[in-house]
């Protein structure tokens, strides 16, 4: 018998007490649903997002579309070699940026920072989510460089985790980022900055 058949057989034997007529839906699940954002509380949700992202030691800069270029320039200060996804919108892309056209891992390790957009933000948890679609680059691009500058539009911010899951497409690779990389492995003393980008700057536009 194959391992597959044997394991499935053991599972069925183990579950002899479950009535044959029972379906998964018969096991009732009552869960809190997504908290939709209304016109009235949209500003509060964005404010909470900014607070919570900053809580985890990321730098949050709120700005209007008009003054974005100025803030972008200062976020990228001290990044001599900047990587951008090849499909990053032109108006965000600094002139001397390096386009990620499938750089090797070793080449990625020689850039100093990366600039991307995001799929959405979650206010409750201070999380930005990348689905690695247009403007967000492949997964390695936002991982190997030491600084990640991420542009999030205020209308991309949802209130809670349930709303985020409802909007995301699981067929895409997803990276949820809540602050810069961190560890609490030594005496549970939190240290920001281990393997991922040690600096995370979120430019929150609008």
């Amino acid at each position, binding site marked *: 018998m*194959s*391992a*597959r058949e*044997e*394991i*499935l057989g*053991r*599972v069925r034997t*183990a*579950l002899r007490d*479950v009535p044959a007529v029972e379906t*998964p839906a018969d*096991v*009732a*699940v*009552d*869960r*809190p649903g997504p908290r939709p954002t209304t016109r009235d509380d949209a500003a509060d949700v964005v404010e909470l997002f900014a607070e919570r992202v900053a809580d*985890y030691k990321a730098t949050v800069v709120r700005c209007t579309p008009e003054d974005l270029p100025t803030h972008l320039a200062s976020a990228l200060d001290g990044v001599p070699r900047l990587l951008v996804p090849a499909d990053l919108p032109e108006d965000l892309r600094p002139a001397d940026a390096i386009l990620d056209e499938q750089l090797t*891992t070793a080449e990625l*390790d020689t850039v100093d920072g990366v600039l991307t957009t995001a799929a959405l933000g*979650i206010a409750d*948890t*201070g999380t930005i989510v990348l689905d*690695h679609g247009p403007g967000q680059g*492949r*997964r*390695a691009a936002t*991982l*190997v460089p030491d600084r990640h500058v991420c542009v999030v539009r205020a209308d991309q911010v949802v209130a809670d*985790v*349930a709303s*985020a*899951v*409802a909007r995301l497409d*699981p*067929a*895409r*690779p*997803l*990276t*949820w*980022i*809540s*602050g810069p*990389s*961190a*560890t*609490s*492995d*030594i*005496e*549970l*003393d939190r*240290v920001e*900055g*281990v*393997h*991922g*980008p040690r600096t995370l700057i979120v430019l929150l536009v609008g």
Partner: protein
Amino acid sequence: MSATFLGTPAFPTAARTALADTQLRRNLAHATGTIRAKRAAVVGEVDEWERLRLAGAALKDRTLRHLDTYLAQLEESLTRAGATVHWARDAAEANRIVVDVARRHGTDEVVKVKSMATQEIGLNEALEAAGIHAWETDLAELIVQLGDDLPSHILVPAIHRNRSEVREIFLREMGRYGKAAPRDLTDTPAELAAAARAHLREKFLRAKVAVSGANFAVAETGTLAVVESEGNGRMCLTLPEVLVSVVGIEKLVPTWADLDVFLQLLPRSSTGERMNPYTSMWTGVTPGDGPQEVHVVLLDNGRTDVLADEVGRQALRCIRCSACLNVCPVYERTGGHSYGSVYPGPIGAILTPMLRGVGHDTQLDSLPYASSLCGACFEVCPVRIDIPEVLVHLRTKVVDAHRGEPKVQNLAMKAASWAFADARRTAAAERISGAVGKVLRGTKRRAPGGRGVLGALPGPAAAWSDARDVPVPAQESFRAWWARTDGGRTEQQNGNGGAK
């Protein structure tokens, strides 16, 4: 680097050693106290926490009660997404599958994301035996591996080490396996983390094959999720060409939408954060992004035995948050090593004996007793595993498994059963007991309330009296007193100690 839990003595003996280690107790008290406070603060922020816990428990029950259906569905979703699915009945089979994948790619090293399942099956040792180095990349796992040590906590396996111990290990060992630690390394956690970053980066950039576990596997979509903090997970899940994930069959959740409940429960219960720094989710192979060859090993290794136990089944809801360790008064004092298992603490005390079976190993049989049954573990468990209920259930199983063995307790019970089965025998036993009481009535030791107590009993009974006072037997039995005084009606009112 091949420390093992094999040969750990039974819990009471191991605990005694741990309790005598004052450094260990200081490290543990500090760490568990810190994380308890963090968890309480972020759980307090969630208005509907109890409803979330109920939903988490119900979703896991739904999965477990229909696990065959969901396993088949997961296999189909994964295959459709370009992953290769393997099934492993036990540790040896799982290890063989991973070793074969590594060999096929001609590599002599793999990078690893922290994973309880791969520790449970001893994958690192199996890889080493096949000539393949397994580099642990989680900071705490690295500390444990470099120190030739054993993990002592599910979330922070090096919780028993303090910063100066970590510094010494890094200075002494890093150079033997790759980039050495800087000679002027201090013991500040930031510097120690930077040393780990430098040491591991060359391994991340070089590795062809990575091995991970998974926190969740979505049956509906074939999506796997890994939650982590440091970015070592992202490195392993993204940079190598080949990824092998060893996933226990209890890790399934039915649908994509169900993940939201667990992504809220896990980080707050585990690290005491609203959300952990990084969560990676992937569904098979994504062209041009990440590993282009993806394997998933579905692991049984005793889980179907746990599933077959209708009381113990709930332990398979566990999402490995470790909140129960941090609140446990026994864990806080004895640490993880005393449990002799990769799963320590309250959850380990039920999961380990069920995965490996009770009745055949003294160490395993001692684990259900490693608890005061205070219930704190049940209160914090994000998926409401009633650990005390399962502990008591397992104690019954342990006792049942040893019924009829010639132990002092069994002999005493047999004798009592014989004596109490017949009124004349009982009366004779009472007379003997009364005579003993008369002889010993002058004993000096007194229990609270004034009754005389004996010191240590002789012979094998000493084990019982070690921690208990043995009362001096009454000089007269209740039945004898009743017969003599006509139920107290004829007793002298000035009698000594009689009924009123």
